[in-house]
């Protein structure tokens, strides 16, 4: 979160900084015109110069460079165009406004330039008045500090008051000092690194221990200290990595769960072998896409919130389709449950092709809203991405919704009565056709919510659902048909086991092993995790 906000702040500050420059009040900045250089080496050199000597305002120019707003205009001047907030173009050589220029030919910015810009901005930002910006800058510089930065970093450290920033700067100094020939400085550096608990520094220690032509590294005290520090950091790294696996597992599990919940209703509760379940996911995803597109067209300002608006739609579209399908097709098959396989397979083919003809065979783009982009780096080496965190929360919400509908209203009771004995249920006054219709629609709608979640982690194309159907059936059956809780436990269990195996086996073998485990597990519990026991079970 911190990082996220600090990035936001950086952007805000930069935008603020651009404003005066754009108004043409900026002083003449020598070297800025190098930013239009045709040769990348020159360009990078210009950027580096800015980084070494630049003022906060220059950071804004560098950002503009990345946004393709710096370039040569028709008259060969090196010009910076105004950003979104408006203003006038500025001639970088003279610092004067050049009205009327609205197009420039930007230099070729590639990763090399981008990296240089990033470093330069960080270096400039070390002097920023906002501690958050300074911290972000310091962290940025941590990734590959060089000897040449030592002086400026130490200078910054001397001035620094904020303890977090201080710690970060000290780590940079330590990283640089690790390479110093003086064993004492090395030892001190190792101490700082060890205390920082930052597992990303493991490689620095490794390099130190592996270094051959470094006399300072041969010092036994240094070696011992480095080894101790290394093993303590490595222990931490293992813990972090296990925690990571757990998170990944829960996250994968919650995706599995969301994609299976609808099936747990249509198949688990109603007994429809619903091969069109995947297509309900797909419809939910396309509904989300449509909402996004409408927002882009009609409410461009609120586009970040399209996802919230999509929740009811992604539920409603499959809900209605499900309702129609139930009324037109499924309902004739309740006495021949096996044949629902055939019909729903047909439905699935038809839905896929319909969507393909309407939207094209290619994937459509669904964007993560900015508040779901990126992630929270809880410790170094473990980033919890916002989209996946959101999915976990959303899954909990949908599970609750299902639980509530099925256990706190009579719907669940009636559905189960209908599936267990349709005729008797009728004779007890249950409107079986209504229950069938609502339940199937509900299952489809829930699947649609799964589709909404999928848009945030995967692709949206006509075949989207096909990739989930096997897993969904497996989850529902593994948990025990007709047991919602089984589906929950089954999905999370599969997710966690899968992710626990993946680091050791790789994704392919891991998946094979998981399937094998499922097969073996069912041998032990032939009715799934939460089996119906007792006389009625066979």
């Amino acid at each position, binding site marked *: 979160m911190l990082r996220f906000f600090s990035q936001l702040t950086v952007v805000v500050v930069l935008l603020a900084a651009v404003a005066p420059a754009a108004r043409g009040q900026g002083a003449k900045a020598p070297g800025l015109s190098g930013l239009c250089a045709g040769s990348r080496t020159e360009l990078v050199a210009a950027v580096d110069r800015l980084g070494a000597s630049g003022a906060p305002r220059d950071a804004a120019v560098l950002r503009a460079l990345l946004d393709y707003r710096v370039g040569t205009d028709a008259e060969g001047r090196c010009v910076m165009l105004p950003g979104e907030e408006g203003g006038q173009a500025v001639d970088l050589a003279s610092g004067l406004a050049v009205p009327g220029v609205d197009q420039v030919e930007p230099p070729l910015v590639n990763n090399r330039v981008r990296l240089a810009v990033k470093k330069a901005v960080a270096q400039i930002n070390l002097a920023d008045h906002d501690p958050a910006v300074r911290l972000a800058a310091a962290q940025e510089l941590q990734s590959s500090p060089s000897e040449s930065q030592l002086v400026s970093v130490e200078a910054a450290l001397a001035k620094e008051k904020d303890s977090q920033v201080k710690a970060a700067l000290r780590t940079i100094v330590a990283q640089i000092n690790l390479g110093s020939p003086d064993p004492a400085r090395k030892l001190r550096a190792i101490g700082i690194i060890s205390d920082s608990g930052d597992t990303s520094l493991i490689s620095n220690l490794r390099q130190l221990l592996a270094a051959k032509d470094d006399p300072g590294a041969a010092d036994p005290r240094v070696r011992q200290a480095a080894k101790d520090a290394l093993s303590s950091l490595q222990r931490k790294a293992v813990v972090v990595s296990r925690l990571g696996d757990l998170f990944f597992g829960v996250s994968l599990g919650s995706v599995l769960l969301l994609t299976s919940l609808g099936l747990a209703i249509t198949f688990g509760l109603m007994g429809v072998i619903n091969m069109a379940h995947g297509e309900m996911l797909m419809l939910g995803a396309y509904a989300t896409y449509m909402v996004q597109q409408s927002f882009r067209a009609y409410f461009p300002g609120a586009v970040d919130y399209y996802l919230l608006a999509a929740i009811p739609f992604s539920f409603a579209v499959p809900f209605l389709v499900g309702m129609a399908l139930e009324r037109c097709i499924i309902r004739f098959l309740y006495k021949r449950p096996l044949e629902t396989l055939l019909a729903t397979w047909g439905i699935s083919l038809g839905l896929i092709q319909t969507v393909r003809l309407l939207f094209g065979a290619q994937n459509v783009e669904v964007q993560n809203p900015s508040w779901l982009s990126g992630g929270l780096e809880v410790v170094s080496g473990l980033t919890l991405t916002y989209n996946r965190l959101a999915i976990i929360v959303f899954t909990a919400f949908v599970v609750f919704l299902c639980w509530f509908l099925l256990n706190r209203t009579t719907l669940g009771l009636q559905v189960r009565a209908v599936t267990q004995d349709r005729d008797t249920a009728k*004779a007890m006054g249950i409107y079986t056709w209504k229950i069938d219709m609502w339940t199937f629609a509900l299952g489809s709608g829930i699947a649609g919510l799964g589709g909404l979640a999928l848009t945030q982690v995967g692709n949206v194309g006509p075949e989207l659902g096909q990739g989930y159907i096997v897993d969904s059936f497996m989850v529902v059956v593994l948990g025990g048909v007709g047991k919602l809780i089984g589906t929950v436990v089954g999905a999370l269990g599969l997710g966690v086991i899968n992710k626990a195996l993946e680091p050791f086996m790789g994704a392919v073998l891991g998946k094979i092993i998981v399937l094998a485990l499922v097969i073996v597990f069912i041998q032990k519990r032939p009715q799934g995790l939460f089996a119906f026991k007792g006389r009625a079970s066979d």
Partner: protein
Amino acid sequence: MLRIEKLSQAYGGSQILWDVDLTLEPGDCVCLMGRNGVGKTTLLKALMGLLPLRSGKILFDGLDLTRLAAPMRARNGIGYVPQGRDIFPRMTVEENLRVGLVGRRDGLRAVPSFIFELFPVLKDMLGRQGGDLSGGQQQQLAIGRALACDPKLMILDEPTEGIQPNIISHICDVISRLNREMGLTVLWVEQKLPIARRLGKTFQLMDKGRIVASGAMAELDDELINKHLKV
């Protein structure tokens, strides 16, 4: 109360019921009797709306049920105890009873306690799966479930099957009491003569898909029995 007119029913090609006429007055308690396979269950199912009719008409409380679906019939006050109990096997006893409440007109949400007074064993078994109960317990549950929907007309298909003797008497007493005191109309399929005699005010005899004899219970004599209840 209930009038069945010229009801015919067939499974595919083979006709089972032939122009059955049957009339029940409010407060009647009728025993329907007949050999195996003469169509008693078929008649009750048709009455309940679980089988399509070939022809005929069913009137209940002035309402034409003929075109009405089963749940509406239940909600209009017909309680049904199916043959073979048809408990929901994977639902607990309590849930089974709550299903019975669905058909109530007063929207009551809790199982009325008189059912547990009637069948104390159900109280002990509330959390047990319906399918796990013993046969007799299931039968009691089925009757309890039908009573839960507060019917005006109860139709029971051999409800004493598999029930222990003292409870049979108990059930007979209760049904008679409901019949007498609350005016519950009862249509009861029964094979066992003693029970039929004890319970029924009138009888209807079925043979080969037709009602062949009816009258007050006292009129059920050996001749009729020999003629229609023996092979």
